[in-house]
């Protein structure tokens, strides 16, 4: 994204010098997130929803649960569909249609976290084999893009799912709406590599300077359910290992802080 971003270009030199002195632009420690806020239930018309802020980055995630037909090769499983809209509101660089591959990568990464962690039990989302299953649509709407959308979107998806309701009444499946069962809490932690250092939760300026970042999605037991290296530079094995360790730790912190009582 960096090279498209005018502000980033202007401040690149300044930031470079700062980072050379071991400092981050906003004074954070290398393993420190910006302030995180998560508000759930913000969209009454959605079955689940969350408004997440990480620093100035803002994302709304809405979960819609509707009845549909299963895929023919998985007739007894519900369906998860994850979509991300990088609307032009969120960034001057999204003006003429946002970078399509970036939005798709974001959505697929969030999707993999939910899917591979087995957070949702797709078998339980089957209503009538081959005929009727619950379709869980996870829609990510980025409102303000100040870096690290992946983690914000992942947190939003998890929070929205954790508070989502299966609309049994609306679809006349049963007399009572029940809460969606979520069995795992995958948390994505993204870090950049810059001059050999690994720093979590890059703000926009940091994303612009570092040419590579890595997202690691981990589970409650510290196991890993997803990894993606993003960007144009290479990483060493040591850097990858440090990023993975840091991600597992930060994920645990975030999980305990936000999701233990949800």
């Amino acid at each position: 994204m960096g090279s498209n971003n005018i502000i980033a270009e202007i401040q690149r030199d300044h930031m470079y010098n700062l980072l050379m002195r071991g400092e981050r632009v906003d004074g954070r420690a290398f393993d420190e997130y910006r302030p995180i806020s998560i508000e759930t239930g913000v969209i009454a018309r959605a079955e689940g929803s969350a408004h997440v802020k990480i620093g100035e980055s803002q994302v709304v995630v809405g979960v819609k649960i509707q009845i549909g037909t299963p895929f023919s090769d998985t007739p007894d499983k519900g369906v998860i569909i994850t979509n991300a809209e990088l609307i032009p509101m969120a960034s001057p660089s999204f003006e003429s249609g946002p970078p399509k591959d970036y939005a798709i990568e974001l959505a697929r990464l969030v999707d993999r976290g939910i899917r591979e962690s087995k957070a949702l039990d797709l078998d339980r989302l089957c209503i009538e084999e081959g005929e009727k299953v619950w379709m869980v649509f996870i829609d990510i709407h980025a409102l303000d893009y100040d870096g690290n959308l992946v983690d914000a979107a992942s947190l939003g998806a998890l929070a929205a799912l954790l508070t989502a309701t299966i609309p049994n009444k609306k679809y006349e499946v049963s007399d009572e709406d029940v809460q969606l069962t979520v069995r795992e809490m995958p948390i994505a932690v993204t870090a950049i590599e810059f001059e050999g250092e690994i720093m979590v939760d890059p703000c926009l300026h940091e994303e612009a300077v570092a040419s590579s970042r890595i997202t690691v999605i981990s589970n409650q037991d510290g196991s890993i359910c997803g990894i993606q290296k993003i960007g144009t530079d290479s990483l060493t094995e040591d850097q990858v290992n440090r990023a993975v360790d840091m991600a597992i730790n930060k994920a645990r912190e975030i999980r305990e802080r936000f999701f233990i009582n949800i």
Partner: protein
Amino acid sequence: MNAKPEKFIIDGLRLDGRRPDELRPLKISAGVLKRADGSCYLELGANKVMAAVYGPRQVHPRHMQDATKAIVRYRYNMASFSVGDRKRPGPDRRSIEISKVCRDAFQPVVIKERHPRLAIDVFVEVLQAGAGTRTAGINAASVALADAGIAMKSLVASCAVGKVDDTLVLDLMKEEDNYGQADMPIAVIPTTGEITLLQMDGHLTRDEFGTGFKMAMEGCQKIHEAQKEALAKCYQMKDDGGEQVGE
């Protein structure tokens, strides 16, 4: 979706307890986004809309530029999760028409001659839809334009009037919109009373049109007050040392 109510007005009050000429609760916050040059979050009844403004900024491709003045662009969009049944992402015919009439609702007030070849981009995202999203969007966009420091002759205020149980009612709520007899959104320049948007569908007699029109006009005046308050509050916060958002 709820079924059609038997009566819309009981003892002179509407389903949500409002009088016929009363607006829904309105909440406006300016300067809520970092990246946009101006922004506004607005709630009107069940509606939740976000507006952002970028510009004046460069236009690509170049053949869309106007050598004599800035162009105004307007994108009205509904989030997939904003309505009862999930909406496919992206523009549909309805949103393309709404974007067009809303864009034109701002053409008379934006002072475009100052910025030839540039664009002023208005983005309205409906996060939750509850009848009257286009008017809510215009009201938010108006504040966002001011927040972005775009030169305008005036704010624009917008409001709809409708008809239920043969009675004219201001600012339709969902049931009134779905099952009512008419819907007429307007947008005006509150200081002069000039109309910048006017649409109507349903059924109105000639007289109802005239009376309803005046009701909608008065609704716009009330909204205009709320818009000014929100902007004042936003500037005061900035003066009090808050971050200079959108400046």
